[in-house]
């Protein structure tokens, strides 16, 4: 068959299947990410159907998917929100980092994957899925809840932590020495601070540079700028994703909102392909051996996220049910765990079992997270004494 025809047929079939999976996910009210991953496992290396024709395109699309995911993560919060979030919730953020990085890193060390593997798995278990968390909070009508700002500010902190973590991870994966690694940490901290200052003081200039009333011009400007910055960042060994993320932070105000709207469909498409590609490159036969570890890790890191949420919500003066709601909302891991694992796998310095473990882990957490958020309330209620409804005196003349 003509190679172009083969590529188109394969790509069309895959995207169409993704559409079916996304519809199924919407029907049962879950995140589509685990289904995309399963779809990817089903095709590709060791799976039932081998896709040869679309490999090159899918690979590049997956990269663009990561860039768009990070760009939109940067767009989500304004620089001012990031700074106030950091100031107000750094204690909870640090606790979150400690409690959730250690289990992943520890397991990696135990399995003999070395410091690099520990860096990667720590990141995978640390980062909550802000996408799933936001959707769960909206779907369950909890936006007006008192614990919601607590959850959001922890997500904001994770967001900033990613900006420092990703360049360090890239440097570690490239196998640089400790001195060079520390230098990268210094540089990335400096770059993050610089971008925040620029975004706070001169964000409108950056926004102006890409903004346009014409949505076509706007889209092309945005995408062009994102790919350029990502490419330059990659050339400087800082990781393409971080470049896009920084651009997202620098774009602010109304431009950021319209950018989110314009980019959403593109992000959905390319991110879906990214998840599939990750699944494609993972051999499904490698999953059963690590399933036990993934389950153990899932249980431990679900508990650690709940502890984080409970602690942070308690500090904010929230009642017991609200504390557990905050904890449960943080459990879900998703897109960014896969982004981290994907960076590691692409570098080829981590064992293939790591990809399998990360896949299994995210599959469990992306499904269990929303379920936990939904059912935490009735469960907490079971353990509490029922409260009698007080009778209120109606207002009016006595």
């Amino acid at each position, binding site marked *: 068959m003509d190679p172009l025809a083969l590529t188109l047929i394969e790509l069309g079939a895959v995207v169409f299947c993704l559409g079916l999976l996304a519809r199924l996910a919407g029907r049962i009210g879950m995140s589509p990410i685990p289904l995309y991953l399963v779809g990817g496992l089903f095709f590709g290396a060791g799976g039932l159907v081998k896709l040869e024709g679309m490999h090159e395109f899918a690979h590049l699309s997956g990269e663009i998917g990561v860039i768009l995911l990070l760009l939109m993560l940067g767009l*989500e*919060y304004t620089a001012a*929100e*990031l700074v*106030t*979030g950091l100031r107000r919730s750094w204690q909870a953020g640090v606790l979150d980092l400690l409690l959730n990085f250690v289990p992943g890193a520890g397991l990696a060390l135990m399995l003999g994957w070395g410091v690099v593997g520990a860096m990667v798995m720590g990141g995978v278990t640390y980062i909550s899925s802000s996408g799933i968390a*936001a959707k769960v909070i909206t779907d369950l*009508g*909890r*936006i*007006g*809840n*008192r*614990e*919601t*700002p607590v959850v*959001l*500010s922890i*997500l*904001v902190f994770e967001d900033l932590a990613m900006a420092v973590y990703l360049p360090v991870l890239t440097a570690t994966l490239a196998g640089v020495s400790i001195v060079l690694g520390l230098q990268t940490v210094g540089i990335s901290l400096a770059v993050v601070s610089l971008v925040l200052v620029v975004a706070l003081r001169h964000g409108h200039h950056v926004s102006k540079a890409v903004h346009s009333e014409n949505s076509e011009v706007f889209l092309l400007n945005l995408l062009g700028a994102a790919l350029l910055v990502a490419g330059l960042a990659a050339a400087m060994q800082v990781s393409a994703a971080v470049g896009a993320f920084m651009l997202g932070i620098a774009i602010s105000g109304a431009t950021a*909102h319209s950018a989110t709207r314009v980019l959403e469909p593109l992000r959905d498409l390319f991110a879906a392909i990214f998840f599939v590609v990750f699944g494609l490159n993972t051999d499904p036969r490698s999953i059963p051996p690590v399933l036990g570890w993934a389950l153990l890790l899932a249980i431990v890191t679900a508990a650690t996220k709940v502890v984080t949420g409970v602690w942070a919500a308690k500090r904010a003066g*929230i*009642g017991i*049910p*609200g504390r557990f*709601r905050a904890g449960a909302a943080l459990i879900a891991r998703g897109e960014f765990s896969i982004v981290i694992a994907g960076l590691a796998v692409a570098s080829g310095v981590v064992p293939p079992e790591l990809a399998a473990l990360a896949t299994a882990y995210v599959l469990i957490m992306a499904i269990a997270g929303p379920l936990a958020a939904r059912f935490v309330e009735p469960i907490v209620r079971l353990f509490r004494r029922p*409260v009698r*409804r*007080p009778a*209120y005196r109606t207002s009016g003349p006595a």
Partner: protein
Amino acid sequence: MNVDETDLPGLGRRKDFMTASGRRIGVVEYREGQTELIVSTWDDPDTCLASVPLTADEAAALGNLLGGQRLAMQLSEAHREVPGIVTRQFSISAESPFQNQPMGKACIRTRSGVSIVAIMREGEVLPSPAPDVVLHPGDLLIAVGTQEGLDTAASILRNG
């Protein structure tokens, strides 16, 4: 009244307060401009029993209803000493013959002896409105007069 304002990073702002009956009530203002009315459950003030999306018009109408109620209660309190004087609220419907007309055209004081002491519009109070104030649909008129006078005024505003 102490209204708490809380940032919701990535979403917008929440403004709420605790009522004397132990419920939290307020609004969520989204970055994109929508408004949601939120009410907590009675046993857990941290939750939301309901979050009701409101259009700009609906929010203004609700504001009028609540604000008008307060004004009417204060006025009744002030007139309690004067027997026979009552405060009532009239809303200008989209069918009213006086919508988009100056209020003086209805000649309410001449025909019924009732005084319009204030107009509630989009959550704001226009005190002692002059006869040349143009009435809009959704306006809430605060009227003071006798029981019979107010009945007459209501019929004037409805039927012309």
